[in-house]
């Protein structure tokens, strides 16, 4: 029974969501926006993030149901609620969770005031989970097959991945002309653990038979890859905490990645940006344990042989037809690839009377409006999100960005981000799905990001 609880808790807690950071994207007063576009138009002389506080981001989502649907204290029997959730969701509903914690970050400008090349670097830890609703498995678990004669249960409904990894990155961006900024960021991934089971297939059905009561066929092709767990399963005597620390600092399964991005100004007040994040892979070579089951079985039951006595043993038959193998072979996982793009039109004179912007500020415009597109690869169809935004420089030291996002989780996601720079201290707080804050338990997705940096602003004049 504990197994069932674990599955349930996993289902609920993995209610995860996409990694769209629509407020942070191109919010260039926050240095962390460079993690969503290495070619972002971010200028600084140097900056450093407060260790562990410079970038805290969390993002949970569930497209089919909310915490309230399952755990509302409303007198309805939990089993009824669970059934309602299972039967009102589809196999394409997903639960996702993404958490990022910056361990350290910093950046500096290369050369003197006339150059426009910037280095940025840092390290963050990321937890990333995406699981689809295993609908047909849930139906089997809740109801069995008795009332589903003729239904083909789809084994590919099991589709989940989860990973804890740390990322060390080094980025470079350069204003190559008055109109164009190009950037790239190299990444080294160190995976602490990984579970992935995203390419399952097969089916199971029961129909009325003729010679036997039922025709029952199971065809399965499943694979669960894990890395980073095996040491903890049998007779573990080490110290898990120090193990995880070791894996965080390059002791895990390693991988390489690349981010690319650009910012282009066709006109002074018109801006186009695009980025590809996490073009990369992780090669899992250590602490691997994988489980594979593959085969076809047409189950007819016992077939006594009254002449020769060569009757069958159904357990042996099943195990021969669909053997379960434990493998220890290397495997590679691809990082979820993210694509961001934006177009922005700016207006209003930033130096006019409604803003006390002072001379060193480069922003000529108080207001910007625009649209963003986000896409992320998943084991099934890519996640897409479209965002409209409005940015405003409220004071010299306070910038705001409001977003309205439509995606598969919500069609009325309003987000708000504020970034304030007092002296050299920059603090930002971004949150989306603000409408859901009136009852977070009913929210289908929530995300927030916040952080603290010290920024020494860019200088365009010699001291």
């Amino acid at each position, binding site marked *: 029974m504990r197994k069932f609880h674990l599955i349930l808790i996993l289902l609920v807690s993995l209610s995860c969501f996409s990694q769209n950071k629509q407020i942070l994207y191109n919010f260039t007063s926050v240095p962390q926006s460079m993690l969503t576009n290495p070619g972002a138009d971010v200028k600084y002389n140097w900056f450093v993030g407060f260790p562990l506080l410079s970038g805290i981001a969390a993002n949970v989502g569930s497209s089919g149901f909310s915490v309230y649907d399952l755990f509302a204290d409303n007198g309805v029997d939990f089993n009824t609620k669970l059934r309602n959730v299972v039967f009102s969701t589809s196999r394409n509903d997903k639960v996702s969770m993404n958490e990022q914690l910056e361990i350290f970050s910093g950046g500096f400008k290369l050369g003197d005031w006339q150059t426009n090349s910037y280095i940025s670097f840092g390290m963050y830890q990321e937890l990333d989970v995406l699981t689809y609703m295993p609908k047909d498995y849930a139906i089997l678990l809740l109801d069995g097959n008795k009332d589903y004669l003729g239904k083909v249960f789809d084994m590919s409904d099991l589709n989940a991945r989860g990973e804890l990894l740390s990322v060390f990155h080094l980025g470079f961006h350069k204003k190559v002309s008055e109109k164009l900024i190009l950037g790239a960021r190299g990444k080294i991934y160190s995976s602490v653990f990984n579970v992935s089971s995203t390419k399952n297939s097969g089916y199971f059905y029961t129909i009325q038979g003729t010679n036997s009561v039922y025709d029952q066929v199971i065809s399965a092709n499943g694979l669960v890859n894990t890395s980073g767990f095996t040491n903890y399963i049998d007779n573990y005597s080490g110290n898990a905490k120090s193990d995880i620390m070791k894996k965080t600092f390059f002791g895990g399964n390693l991988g390489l990645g690349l981010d690319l991005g650009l910012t282009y100004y066709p006109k002074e007040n018109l801006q186009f940006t695009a980025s590809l994040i996490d073009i990369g892979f992780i090669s899992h070579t250590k602490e691997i344990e994988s489980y594979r089951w593959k085969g076809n079985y047409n189950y007819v039951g016992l077939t006594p*042989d009254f002449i020769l006595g060569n009757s069958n043993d159904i357990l042996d038959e099943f195990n021969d037809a669909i053997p379960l193998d434990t493998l220890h072979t290397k495997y590679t996982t691809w990082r979820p690839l993210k694509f961001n793009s934006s177009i922005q039109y700016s207006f209003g004179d930033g130096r006019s009377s409604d803003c006390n912007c002072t001379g060193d500020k480069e922003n000529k415009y108080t207001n910007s409006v625009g649209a963003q597109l986000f896409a992320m690869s998943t084991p099934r169809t890519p996640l897409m999100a479209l965002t409209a935004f409005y940015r405003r420089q409220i004071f010299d030291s306070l910038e705001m960005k409001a977003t309205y996002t439509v995606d598969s989780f919500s069609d009325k996601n309003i987000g708000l981000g504020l970034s304030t720079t007092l002296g050299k201290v920059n603090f930002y707080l971004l949150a989306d799905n603000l409408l859901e804050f009136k009852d977070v338990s009913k929210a289908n997705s929530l995300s927030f990001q916040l952080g603290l940096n010290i920024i020494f602003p860019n200088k365009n004049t010699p001291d």
Partner: protein
Amino acid sequence: MNKFFGIFILSLLFFSCSSDLDFDQANDLELKPVVVANLASFDIPANQFVIGGVEQPFVGDVMNFKVFNDPDFTNNLSRTDLYFEFDNTINRAFNINLYFLDANDAILYNIPIAIPAYTGSPNVVTKTEVFENAQLDILKQTQKIAFVIALMPGIPLTDSSLGSLKMRSSATIYFAAQ
């Protein structure tokens, strides 16, 4: 200007509410799937009861049947129905016995079924055995099933006798897991 910031944070905190949630409900979880599956089937033509021109008084087979031995499987068992359906088109009556045997071949349970001879009209016999509560232990100890088919007296069968004795059977397994 910090006021804006303060108001933003405060509004997030103050306007964010949550309905009452009770995560302990997960302990009320009950899973009650009902699974149907084939149990066994056979189709014996009349002439198979004749060996070397001589009718055999009975035929039988003993088969491994350890499905209900697996504790993961049986711990959450609440009831099992075994359904048998015989269709006899041989002009002879049969007595069929199903024996559930334990690891030492001792008989734990017996299901006797009498099948009348075929006389030209449909001749289907069905039987459902329900195992609940203490009776489930019989299934859990069962390691083998023996089918024994005895021919009742009548006109002897020959190699050219017509008809067959068919059986189809299935299990309906009720789980209750909490």
